[in-house]
């Protein structure tokens, strides 16, 4: 409806005057004396705003640590200082400011917090029961109107495991892949909260989840609906984008009128929540995260994105990216990948352990993702396996470069690289102190700070979040 453009009372009157299609009955007979819509007026872009705030921290200096800065830099035996929620300085040796907590990290490593670009925590939470199965609005193949954030259950214990075992500080929650257009994603800080808004990463752009391949055609083909084939997938996609272009044109024309001061409220185009998301993509405000396994299908999607004037941020799952790493590099598209998942369905049959290393080696953007409440607890280990597989075929990628797969690369692909994703001065102090080399199986997070606040400490049971669901249950507050 159009109420957001008007004072509440007028909106209420208009609502009652609406016909079933939502258009005001007076649309064609607006009075010339009707006041124009205020210049610059827009549909609100952020109706469910973040209420997250950084928790209190103390200025902290970590010394004698090996640092992977998340952008490919490395300091051995170095120091990291953060204060007021922000990274202050990295260096070989930093003098402790007055009042700072100094932690001697001899034998330990420091990295930026791990970012998982592909999670369903909160949407498919634990326990995995039907009552909490909220990740796929599989009632139609085109559902860009749904927002993953409206399914997020903040009491999913998975968030706490990802923090304590995986050092995850930021994660993108995506709708599932039953649909061609799955809906909007949401980016969260991995901080326990009573509401989704309390976790929401302030100012992070939205993503749009899309899916290629087997899932959409299987889900709808079984119901004898379109799409039932890969060509059906693309056909529905293209028609939807064509509709989105139309929608965009009508709204752009309206906004031009608004800005000229000639727009009359009654002439406002009808809002379509699904199309608003797609319009956001066409304008580059919403980033496309496209579930796509096969190389040939990714190539089709790249051409489709050019046909309709949008950009794919990242192909997710992307088990065949190694076959078209050149194409992905040329088009500036990231691949979010597993280290060694393979064979669970036919489109994953050609997955190889060297995928990530080959993509990286070709100069394309590589990201390690989980798509899994267990895998998210060990993304550092997934990166290590991918590194080792590369090394065995002669692609030697240094540890500090490997860490970009978990840090700056996903941050860039999610549009938050100016705020997190590396240990650069001024960025969010999302920091993990590991009790050893984080590319070793024998290493765990010892401390995790988010915006400079100590949110997990392996040495302090009081710094271990326990979700409501676990209270009073066997194992409450256990090390997990």
């Amino acid at each position, binding site marked *: 409806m159009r109420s957001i453009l008007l004072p509440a009372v007028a909106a209420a009157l208009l609502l009652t005057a609406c016909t079933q299609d939502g258009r005001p009955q007076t649309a064609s007979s607006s009075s010339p004396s009707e006041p124009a819509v205020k210049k610059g007026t827009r549909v609100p872009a952020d109706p469910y705003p973040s209420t997250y705030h950084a928790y209190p921290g103390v200025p902290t200096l970590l010394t004698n640590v090996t640092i992977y800065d998340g952008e490919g830099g490395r300091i051995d035996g170095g120091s990291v200082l953060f204060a007021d929620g922000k990274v202050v300085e990295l260096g070989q040796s930093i003098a402790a400011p007055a009042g700072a907590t100094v932690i001697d990290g001899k034998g330990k490593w420091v990295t930026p917090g791990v970012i998982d670009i592909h999670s369903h925590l909160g949407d498919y939470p*634990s*326990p*995995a*029961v039907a009552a909490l199965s909220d990740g796929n609005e599989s009632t139609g193949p085109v559902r860009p109107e749904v927002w993953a954030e409206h399914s997020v259950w903040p009491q999913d*214990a*998975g968030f706490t*495991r990802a923090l304590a*075992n995986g050092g995850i500080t930021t994660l993108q929650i995506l709708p599932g892949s039953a649909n061609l257009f799955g809906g909007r994603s949401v980016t969260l800080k991995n901080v326990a909260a009573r509401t989704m808004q309390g976790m929401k990463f302030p100012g992070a752009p939205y993503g749009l989840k899309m899916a290629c391949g*087997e899932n959409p055609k299987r889900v709808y083909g079984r119901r004898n609906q379109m799409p039932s084939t890969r060509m059906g997938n693309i056909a529905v996609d293209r028609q939807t984008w064509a509709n989105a272009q139309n929608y965009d044109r009508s709204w752009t024309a309206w906004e031009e009128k608004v800005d000229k001061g000639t727009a009359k409220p009654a002439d406002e185009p009808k809002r379509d929540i699904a199309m608003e998301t797609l319009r956001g993509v066409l304008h580059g405000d919403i980033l496309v995260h496209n579930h796509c396994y096969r190389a040939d299908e990714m190539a089709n999607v790249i051409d489709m994105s050019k046909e309709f004037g949008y950009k794919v941020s990242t192909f997710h799952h992307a088990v065949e990216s*190694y*076959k*078209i*790493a*050149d194409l992905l590099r040329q088009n500036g598209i990231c691949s979010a990948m597993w280290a*060694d*998942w*393979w*064979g*669970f*369905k*036919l489109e994953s*049959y*050609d*997955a*190889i*352990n*060297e995928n990530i290393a*080959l993509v990286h080696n*070709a100069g394309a953007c590589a990201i390690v993702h989980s798509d899994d*409440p*267990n895998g998210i*607890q*060990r993304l550092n*280990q997934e990166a*290590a*396996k991918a*590194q*080792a597989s590369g*090394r*065995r*075929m002669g692609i030697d990628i240094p540890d500090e470069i490997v860490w970009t797969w978990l840090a700056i690369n996903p941050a860039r692909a999610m549009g938050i690289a100016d705020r997190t994703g590396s240990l650069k001065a001024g960025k969010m102090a999302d920091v993990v102190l590991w*009790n*050893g080399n984080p*590319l*070793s*199986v*024998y*290493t*765990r997070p010892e401390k995790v700070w988010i915006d400079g606040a100590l949110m997990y400490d*392996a*040495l302090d*049971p009081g710094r271990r979040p326990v979700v409501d*669901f*676990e209270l009073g*249950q*066997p*194992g409450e507050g*256990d*090390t*997990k």
Partner: protein
Amino acid sequence: MIGLLATRFAMGALALARAAAPAVAQTVAITNGRVVIGDGSPPIEGGTVVIRNGRVVSAGAGAPPAGMPVIDATGKWVTPGLVAGFSRIGLAEVDGEEASNDGGATGSPFSAAIDVVPAINPRAYAIQVNRAAGVTRAIVAPSPAVGLFAGQGAVIDLGADMDAVTRPRAFQFVEMGEAGADGAGGSRAAAHVLFRNALFEAKEYARNPSGYGGRDRDALLMRLDAAALAPVVSGQVPLLVHVERASDILQVIDLKREFPALKLVLVGASEGWTVADRIAAARVPVIASALNDLPASFEALAATQSNIGRMAAAGVTAAIGMIDDNDARQARQQPQYAGNLVALQKVPGATGLDWNHAFAAITSGPAEAIGLGGEIGSLRPGRHGDVVIWSGDPLELSSAPEIVVIDGVRQPMDTRQTKLRDRYRSLDETERPRAYQR
């Protein structure tokens, strides 16, 4: 590979007893490596492993006998091959493609009688991939079909030949938790009465096989199902029972009061640590998921990665398996899982395993759990000659097998995956398409 003779089982089923005569050389000595026996003992530096006629003769300090072919493993780790603790390797090519997946048969009229052996495909993609990753044997279980009993599982080797079965009908597998309740009509109570009834009928069959009427005399069990359960009731064949919840574990242990000969093995047991003393007292071994730590279901609320460590500390024989965890393909992740249990030792409040016992949990552990510790899972004398030579610490993420030997026979290390890798190492198509690159 060399099959164990399977003659002692009831049912008069074809014993598949194969003459132990693989064609390739089965005698080899592996020298100068860091040798891990796999039984929980510490590694032996500069050790020698001697395999003669496909079996381990010795492993430890000392020089090899003269005249044997020798593999020099200087700077390498030498271990027994990994045992997939609970898997469905060889039963599926692509899980999601039903026609290629023989893991379970929900449309079958049979249950306990189902035998995975005819479904094992030694050429399954998962066999070559896991073999190249150091998995040499697998405990292979069927998925539940109708009712509680999934059927008879096998132990296989992952060798590159057509004789995969080491021990057919090595165990019976049954679901007794949420899945069991579902299969029994909707409740755990119904599952238990169905279970007890089945065992009574199996006893009846054992007393007089020709007199057993099966369903034509109001019995619930088909004749072949009863026949398959008879050696379970008598304790000749182990019964692997999947349960997760603490109360379910105790109920299963309690079954031994009524059926004292049952040779129980718990599978899953996510909440086992909360009743570890009672599992230990009952001397029931466990094959558990290593890293489940989410309240993923209402039967796993107390799940923690410390489960295996805490059970082991209480005296339970606890091994690692791939329960409902990519069981047809990813047993190759077991070393990573074991390594994570080692890592837990450094986390205050958690309980892990030391390296030696963590490694045993993916080798001798599962073998012992199903009563085959004398045959596979370690480099102690007399075991199958399954040896892996690793580039480094086998539990570390950077390590990989360099040589895999099964029954003394060196195995190929290339797979469809390595061929894809090599094809796409370069993307240059100036001369010809990649399709010509092999």
